[in-house]
């Protein structure tokens, strides 16, 4: 049923970096997502996104880092009203699964969490040939246990079409 109402979807691989206090031990991470896109108008889409983000931690332990799997809903607004070009996309959601595996007092501890997710996403939608692409920059924060994990990502996504816009 979902495939009849999702006009298209996309998938992405991106580079991420944890930012904020006590994140200097994190090296670059990688993130991927699949996103369902429901067209509301020529300039607006409602989006649902399932992601998986992995951040590697070099703190002297082995196999350490953070994994975050957020499920988010968003509203994507194309600034020029065409469905291409620059857009902004606020997102809100829930972290389905999160774990930080960190070196504490000589031992590796796995700290599991969930929490609310907020993201501010902006990007540029464009075509190369007939292939729609989305170059985007995102700031995302996960809030749980009175703390937050914050990260930025830069990614390029490609579209998987299930339907077409009216003017296509």
């Amino acid at each position, binding site marked *: 049923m979902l495939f009849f109402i999702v006009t298209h979807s996309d998938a992405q691989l991106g580079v991420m970096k944890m930012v904020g206090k006590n994140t200097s031990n994190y090296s670059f991470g990688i993130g991927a997502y699949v996103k369902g896109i429901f067209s509301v108008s020529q300039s607006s889409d409602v989006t649902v996104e399932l992601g998986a983000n992995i951040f590697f931690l070099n703190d002297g332990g082995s196999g350490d880092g953070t994994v975050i799997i957020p499920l988010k809903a968003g509203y994507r607004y194309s600034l020029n009203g065409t469905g291409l070009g620059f857009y902004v996309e606020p997102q*809100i959601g829930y972290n389905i699964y*999160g774990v930080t595996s960190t070196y*504490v*007092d000589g031992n590796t501890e796995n700290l599991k969490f969930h929490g609310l997710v*907020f993201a501010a996403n902006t990007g540029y939608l464009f075509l190369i040939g007939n292939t729609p692409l989305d170059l985007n920059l995102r700031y995302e924060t996960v*809030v749980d246990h*009175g703390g*937050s*994990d914050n990260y930025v990502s830069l990614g390029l996504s490609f579209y998987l079409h299930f339907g077409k816009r009216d003017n296509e």
Partner: protein
Amino acid sequence: MIRQLFIFFLMVIFLSSCLKQSIADAMIADQDPGAKGVATLTYQINGNTVTTTVNGPDDQTSTDYQLICSKDPYMGTNLFVYGLDCLSTSGELTFTFGTSIAVGHYSYLGSYGDMFVLNYNGQAEYVHDPADSISFNITSSSNGHISGNFSGILTPMIVAGNPNNTYGTPGSVLITNGSFKNVPVFSW
């Protein structure tokens, strides 16, 4: 309307990202709420007692601290070393545990080479003589805090002139009854 909503959303993100700790750090702190109380380090140097007490030790920073165990990168490697550092009214005391702060015994012997340990009223005390040593026992290491005890036999440095330092009577500085409690472990 969309613009106002987006600005409001950005404010929510900004405020949430201003939370003081990462989720992992907050969870570690939650595991032992009482650990935020007081950190202490005390020892006797030739019978004179030196005591340092820090209220709210978890609130110390890299530029403003008195008693911490810091985790720092080890030159040119992916390893990190843990070091205790105490700044008291009489001077500084420092000791490097190594790559672990698990419960156990840690010592530095005179045969390893000269090493600064503490400064007491303007005089630096070193592990220098082959019979010198400084030993730490970590008796508790959990929830980002360590506790334990220590003792040592040191040699005073009379005149600093590296590499030709002038030392006093070997083994003339005795560190006894040393203990530390609830010292927070920081990674800057």
